[in-house]
C-alpha cells in the first residue's frame, strides 16, 4: 500500500495538501508518482498566479505520460519549487518532502473541508484510485 501521511489532506486527482499556518503546501502523492513512473518534466505556475480549486494549475510528465495537476484549494501562489525544473526526479524520490510543488495562500477556508482525509484517501485508493 502506498504511503499516505496522516497529517495531510488529499484530492481525488492524487494531490496532497499540507496546512502551514495560513498557507497550504501542495504536491503529488506517493501513489501518483509511482503510477506515473520516472518524472522528467514539471510545469508550474508563477508566484502570484490565481488558482481555482479543482482546476488545472500545472503539468507533470513522465517518460510515457502527461498528467494535469489540480489545485486542492483556491488562492494565490506564494511559492514555487524551482528545483523541480532541473531535478524533476525529486518528485519520485521524495513526493511529500523535497518534491513539493507550490505553496498557496488560500482565499477560502471552506474548501479545506472538502478535501479527503488520509483515511478517506486510503479507502479511495483501495477502490482503485479513479
Amino acid at each position, binding site marked *: 500500500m502506498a504511503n499516505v501521511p496522516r497529517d495531510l489532506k488529499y484530492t481525488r486527482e492524487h494531490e496532497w495538501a499540507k496546512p502551514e499556518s495560513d498557507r497550504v503546501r501542495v504536491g503529488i502523492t506517493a501513489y501518483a508518482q509511482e503510477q506515473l*513512473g*520516472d518524472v522528467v518534466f514539471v510545469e508550474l505556475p508563477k508566484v502570484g498566479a490565481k488558482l481555482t480549486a479543482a482546476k488545472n494549475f500545472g503539468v507533470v510528465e513522465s*517518460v*510515457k505520460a502527461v498528467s494535469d495537476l489540480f489545485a486542492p484549494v483556491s488562492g494565490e501562489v506564494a511559492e514555487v519549487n524551482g528545483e523541480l525544473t532541473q531535478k524533476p526526479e525529486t518528485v519520485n524520490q521524495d513526493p511529500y518532502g523535497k518534491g513539493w510543488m507550490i505553496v498557496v495562500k488560500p482565499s477560502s477556508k471552506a474548501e479545506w473541508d472538502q478535501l479527503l482525509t488520509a483515511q478517506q484517501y486510503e479507502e479511495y485508493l483501495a477502490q482503485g484510485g479513479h
Partner: protein
Amino acid sequence: MSATTLKRTPLHQAHVKAGARMVPFGGWDMPVQYTGIVEEHRTVRSAVGLFDVSHMGEFEVEGPGALAALQHLTTNDVAALQVGQIQYSLLCYPNGTIVDDLTVYRVSDDRYMLTVNAGNIDKDWAHVTQSTEHARDVKDARWRNASEGTGLIAVQGPKAEALVGRLADRDVTAIGYYRFARGTLSDVPTLISRTGYTGEDGFELYAPADRTERLWTELVSAGRADGVAPIGLGARDTLRLEMKYVLYGNDIDETTNALEAGLGWVVKPAKGDFIGREALEKVRAAGVQRKLIGLEMTERAVARHGYPVQKDGRAVGIVTSGSYGPSVDKYIAMAYVETALAGIGTELAVEIRGQAKAARVVKTPFHPSRVKKA
C-alpha cells in the same frame, strides 16, 4: 481492447512474476517497465538488458520463386543478400507509403525469414500472400507464418557479447553486424542474430516458443555478474529514439513515404520492379516535400507524437516521437518538417499546450551508435 483478448508471449508469466507493469501494445499484453524506464535505459547503455520481443512476427518464404517474390514485395535488393546475412527493408503500397518496416534473413539459397512488427502481423501476412499470388514468376514461393511458434529475446548492451558468448556453443564474436548463425544456447536451438533496436552492440535470439522461457531464465542467471536486467517497452522506446530509429505507427505508417522518412538507403530501384517503385521514383525526381528530422528542445518542454511544429508562428510540420533522452539528458524528438526547414541548426518551435517552445534541428543519432561494425 479488454485485457482478456490481449495476446501473451511465452514470457508473460516471467514478466508478471518479476513485478513488471503490463500494458496493451499492438494487441499484446507487454511489460512497459520493471523497475523504472530511466534506470532500465541506463542498464542497456552501461551493461546489458534483456527484451522480450516475442510479439514480433516471423514469416518464412521458401522455393525457387522466393527471391522473385521478395524482390517484388520489398524495396531493398534481396539479390545482394548472402546466406547468413540480414537486410533492413520496407513493404510499400503502390503509392510509396509504408505497409511495414522489416528485416529479411537469407536462411539458405532459396529460403528466407522476414521479421515484422507485432501490430502488423495480420496486415503484412495478407499483403505478402495476396500481392504475390497473381505475379507470374513467383508461383514457386511457399509462405509460412511462423509467428506463433517463435519466441524472440533481444540481448543488448556493451556486455551482451560476453553474456551470449558464455551460453553459446559457438564463437559469437565472429558474427558480424546484420549477420546471423544457428547455434544452441543452454541447449536451446537458437538463431543468433547480431541486430537490435537500441544503438548498442547485441543480439536478437530466435528460439522455439516452448523453449523461450528456458532461454530467458538462463540469460538472467548467467548475466547476474554483468548486471543484466529485464527491460520494458518504455526503455526500448527511449533507446531507439536516441538513435532516431523509426517506429512503425509513430514515425512511419500508411501516410508517410519511404523517402521522406529518410529510408531512401533501403529503396533500390536499380534492382527492377517492386511495389511502390514507380511512385517512389517520382518522389525522388521531384524531391521530398518534407523530411523526418531530429529536434532538440532548446526550451524545457517535452514534445510528443502529434504536436505541431512551427516556424515564426506558421505550421511547418508535426512531431512523430518525443521524450526525455536519458543518455543525452535532453528533451528530444523526431518530426516531419518542410524540406526547406530541415537543415541542421534550423530554429523551430513545437506547440505544446498552446505555447510555442523553442527547438532546433540537430544532427542524429542524438547519442553515438555503438553497434558492432563488420
